[in-house]
């Protein structure tokens, strides 16, 4: 006997119709989903409201859970610190002496710098922080690198603002809810930061690799200018990120560039600071990158 043309839920007309309409609705859902996907790729700002609202709903849960996790890991880590306290103590003392010498040197440089700037009549830009929040979550299920920050529009955060910790640059805000925001980390593939090396000031570009590291390429083709351990700082070009924020440390060289590890580790940083956009004219370009940009 030939198999029936489709799954028939018995002789009930009602059941047959509901199955058929379910199928039609599913195909409609597929088409609607594709249209929504195209819209979210072409015009990401179209969903700013609904994405912000979803962030506001989930971020408090994430924040509360992260308090618990921090306490637990703190207790475990604290116990571990007692394990070889004597050796750690000796190491820290050595490090402190070295750091004290460095501080004295840099204080002298700072003083000289202040005198030179005063002589030139330069005025320091006021880089006040907008808000400070905790990094409470991340996109651990996707190749994109996002983090959830516990401050939002009610704290003055807006889309496009740079986020940093005391150690270095974290990324920039791409979705802002009223009490939470989503940050595009510098390790995301689409985040390109104009930068320069601290040693030599060679202009470079830092691009995320999607796995927690960044790719660093010099703007000028030629000899590979990097050395292991080089510190990369932002250059302020483009106006999105403030200059002289540490970005990454070079860990490996490849044929025409280098691989770096971000200095600000979002999983370890307790606080992240949202800053004003360095050059406000750049924010329009940051919110709406041209479609098809790779």
């Amino acid at each position: 006997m030939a198999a029936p043309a489709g799954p028939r839920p018995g002789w009930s007309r009602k059941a047959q119709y509901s199955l058929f309409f379910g199928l039609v609705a599913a195909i409609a859902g597929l088409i609607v989903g594709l249209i929504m996907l195209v819209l979210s790729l072409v015009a990401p700002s179209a969903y700013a409201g609904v994405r912000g609202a979803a962030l506001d709903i989930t971020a408090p849960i994430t924040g509360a859970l992260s308090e618990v996790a921090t306490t637990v890991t703190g207790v475990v880590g604290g116990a571990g610190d007692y394990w070889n306290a004597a050796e750690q103590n000796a190491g820290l003392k050595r490090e402190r002496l070295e750091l004290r010498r460095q501080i004295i040197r840099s204080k002298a440089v700072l003083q000289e710098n202040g005198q030179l700037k005063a002589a030139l009549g330069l005025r320091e830009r006021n880089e006040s922080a907008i808000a400070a929040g905790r990094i409470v979550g991340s996109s651990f299920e996707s190749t994109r690198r996002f983090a959830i920050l516990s401050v939002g529009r009610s704290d003055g955060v807006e889309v496009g603002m740079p986020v940093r910790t005391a150690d270095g640059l974290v990324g920039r805000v791409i979705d802002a809810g009223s009490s939470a925001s989503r940050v595009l980390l510098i390790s995301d593939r689409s985040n390109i930061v104009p930068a320069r090396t601290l040693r030599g000031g060679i202009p470079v570009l830092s691009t995320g690799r999607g796995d927690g590291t960044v790719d660093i390429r010099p703007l000028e083709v030629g000899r590979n200018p990097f050395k292991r351990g080089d510190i990369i700082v932002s250059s302020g070009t483009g106006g999105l990120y403030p200059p002289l924020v540490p970005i990454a440390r070079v860990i490996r060289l490849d044929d025409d560039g280098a691989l770096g590890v971000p200095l600000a580790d979002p999983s370890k940083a307790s606080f992240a600071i949202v800053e004003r956009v360095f050059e406000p004219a750049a924010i329009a370009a940051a919110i709406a990158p041209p479609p098809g940009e790779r």
Partner: protein
Amino acid sequence: MVRAALSNKSGALNAGPVAGASVIPVATVFAGSALAALPIVSSSGWWPNAGFLMLIAWRLLRTDPWPIWWAAPMGFANDLLTGAPIGLSVAWWTAVMLAMELVDRRSQWRDYWVEWAIATVLIAADRWADWQVAGLAGAPVAFVHIVPAIAFGVLAFPLAAMIVSRADRWRSGR
């Protein structure tokens, strides 16, 4: 005896579906999506997509966990909770439901290993779709970066299947 059987509500004879049995599958998928709210700050993004695992685990266990078109709103909730581009899970989850209809019609028999093989294909396709869309959105990472994610998803599927089969037995009162 008859009277006693009627008065005793806890006997096996009176066991039936628990209250709200029809929404339990959807609730578990939503809970899987909501795992994205866990405070895990990862630098690699290799964790399995729990909402999708629950979805395919339910669909592989039964043909009727929900009306087929419910995949679209469930996918929308997943997009909002995980921060994926809105529309990706709406379209992809519905496509998975339609594909499973075809698989059901074409396959003659099914056992544990066949189910795991189907799940492997679907999980790999899920990460591939996520990867493609990330590329279109301006973040084209190398394909090798998603291979561990696929492996972790495939290894996590039996856990999702176990949770789902327990939940199904509980909700149908068996």
